[in-house]
């Protein structure tokens, strides 16, 4: 219950300065029942017009872009994509890395911020975890179809086949298969287990009928007894502890796809931390992009407060600056190495025919988040939204710069090509954006979008010693705000 700390630790011996009271995570002293009503209301009430205005177009775009796009691709062949013999990774892998990166913020919020006891995560973790699941689903489409003949995609799995050929376990591409599928599975378990008590809340509010049966099955018969909570909290802690190294490993393994190759511009040791920071950066921008409108539409301002947005903006500033450092360090290492191919690769990125992509990456990812140094910018939601959109776009350009500009200028001048995406490339990418939004809209419609149980737990009176005035034998003393009185 960090939110009630008002005094410095007892061990502190120096001059006691006033400690500022923490900002409240839930505004206006809302009751437990208000929290239940408001969050379950999103699922139970009729959806606002805006929901339909967003859901119908995004579902249509998903159906045409992903459904139609993939049907055309499979029935015609991957030749319809813009990939060429040199730039063989092209847009599909750009989009894969883009989407998989988006997911990382969800796991960061649910796992790393849980282990570091950042209670403000409770208002946003559910939606961010949902975002992780949907982003990884979008990401998975690209490599699965990029193998060329999708009906042979099962060759990726180490199972015996008629050719008696086994996968190369020394290849980062195979590591990627394991990393991404583990990431999806563990994120799904984390998301679902976290939702069980809240599904029980919805179940208990339903009138008897089909709806109650469905939520009842999903809630697994949860009763909220402490003999359940006790194991449940341990399970949650374990999943957080498992997901933390997992999320760091996933984008590290994705970066190995590049870093272990002997390609100028890719063969660098900075790639794993640089990719992970970039993934968290882009993911938080996507959380803001989605949560700021949702909080207005569903009236969740007392639960997702300006404090939450302020914290996320600061994380974007931090990770954006790390990403900027990585960009500059790449340039410096290329210069300092004295390797002509390495230097040439970066000269081509900055001043070649793809200069616009490099300029977009630099300005959107490095310069735009710097506005978050100013409190006025973090408090103006239009500015926050604008910067989040800049980062979304900028992070896509980062992957485009890394993949396309590098492959377009490899060792042999005879191989040099310029890449341009085909209509099918663009259709599938736009389709996955539609799919992501449509899935998120369905999530808002059918599942509790804020962690009801954990939000209740952040209220000061959730502490069993909230109204204890004197010494408690089991759990120490409630701190007396003595010296604060002195200052007054």
């Amino acid at each position: 219950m960090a939110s009630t700390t008002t005094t410095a630790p007892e061990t502190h011996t120096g001059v006691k300065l006033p400690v500022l009271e923490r900002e409240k995570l839930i505004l206006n002293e809302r009751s437990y029942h208000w929290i239940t009503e408001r969050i379950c209301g999103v699922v139970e009430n009729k959806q606002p017009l805006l929901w339909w205005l967003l859901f119908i177009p995004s579902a249509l775009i998903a159906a045409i872009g992903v459904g139609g796009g993939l049907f055309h691709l499979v029935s015609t062949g991957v030749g319809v994509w813009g990939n060429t013999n040199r730039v063989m990774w092209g847009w599909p892998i750009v989009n894969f890395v883009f989407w998989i990166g988006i997911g990382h913020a969800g796991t960061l919020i649910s796992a790393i911020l849980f282990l570091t006891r950042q209670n403000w995560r409770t208002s946003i973790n559910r939606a961010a975890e949902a975002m992780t699941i949907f982003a990884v689903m979008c990401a998975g489409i690209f490599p699965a179809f990029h193998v060329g003949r999708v009906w042979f995609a099962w060759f990726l799995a180490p199972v015996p086949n008629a050719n008696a050929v086994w996968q190369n376990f020394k290849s980062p591409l195979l590591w990627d298969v394991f990393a991404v599928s583990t990431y999806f599975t563990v994120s799904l378990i984390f998301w679902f287990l976290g939702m069980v008590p809240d599904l029980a809340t919805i179940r208990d509010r339903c009138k008897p009928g089909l709806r109650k049966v469905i939520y009842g099955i999903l809630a697994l018969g949860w009763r909220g007894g402490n003999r359940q909570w006790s194991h449940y909290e341990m399970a949650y802690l374990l999943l957080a502890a498992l997901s933390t190294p997992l999320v760091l490993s996933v984008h590290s393994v994705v970066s190995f796809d590049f870093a272990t190759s002997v390609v100028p511009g890719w063969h660098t040791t900075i790639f794993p931390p640089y990719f992970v920071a970039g993934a968290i950066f882009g993911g938080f921008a996507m959380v803001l992009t989605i949560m700021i409108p949702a909080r207005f539409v569903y009236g969740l301002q007392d639960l997702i407060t300006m404090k939450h947005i302020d914290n996320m903006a600061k994380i974007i500033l931090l990770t954006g600056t790390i990403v900027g450092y990585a960009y500059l360090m790449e340039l410096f290492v290329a210069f300092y190495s004295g390797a002509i191919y390495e230097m040439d690769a970066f000269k081509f990125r900055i001043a070649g025919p793809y200069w616009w992509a490099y300029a977009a990456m630099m300005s959107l990812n490095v310069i735009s988040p710097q506005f978050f140094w100013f409190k006025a910018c973090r408090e103006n939601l239009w500015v926050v939204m604008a910067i989040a959109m800049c980062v979304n776009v900028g992070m896509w350009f980062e992957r485009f710069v890394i993949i396309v500009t590098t492959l377009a200028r490899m060792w042999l001048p005879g191989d040099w090509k310029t890449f341009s995406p085909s209509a099918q490339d663009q259709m599938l990418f736009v389709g996955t954006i539609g799919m992501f939004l449509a899935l998120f809209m369905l999530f808002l419609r059918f599942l509790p979008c804020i962690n009801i149980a954990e939000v209740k737990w952040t209220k000061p009176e959730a502490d069993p010693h909230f109204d204890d005035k004197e010494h408690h034998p089991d759990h120490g003393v409630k701190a007396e705000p003595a010296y604060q009185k002195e200052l007054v």
Partner: protein
Amino acid sequence: MSTTRKRVYGYLAEFKSASALYKAAEKIRDAGFRKWDCYSPYPIHGLDGAMGLKRSILPWFVFFGGMTGCATAFALAYSTQVVIYPTIVQAKPANIFTVPAFFPVMFELTILFSGFTVLFGLLALIQLPRLNHPLFASKQFHRATDDGFFIAIEARDPKFSPNQTKELLAEIGGANIELVEEED
């Protein structure tokens, strides 16, 4: 309508806040009850101690689950890469010295198996999923997932007695004391 026999599940009592529930739990623990539980909309910090519960044994399950995953990945990679189908690429060896290249997959499968062990180990420990429970017959129990704090003492507890247990619950601050019955 046929007559159904009913069996007493136990007493359910409501408490007004988390701290009232905590203090009541300590008293029931000290009275020596075994088959009882506290119900709350969120996990209450320190209630395990107040109820006399031990720390969850789930981490042990997960430790062995994770070890199984790690061993599985090593066996899979080593048997296919070194024994069955050695692939010589990038001048990397196809013997025991190639093991560092297996670490990423060993790590991922450790996490994957641990994740599944958390899920299934938890479900086994909390004895879920189950579709019904006698407590769901109570008229007030639905508030346990909203804003209600309850204690239920089961009739199969050796210390249970129809009158004294009810009095005990009333004495420690329980309100709306209800006899919950299940259909036999």
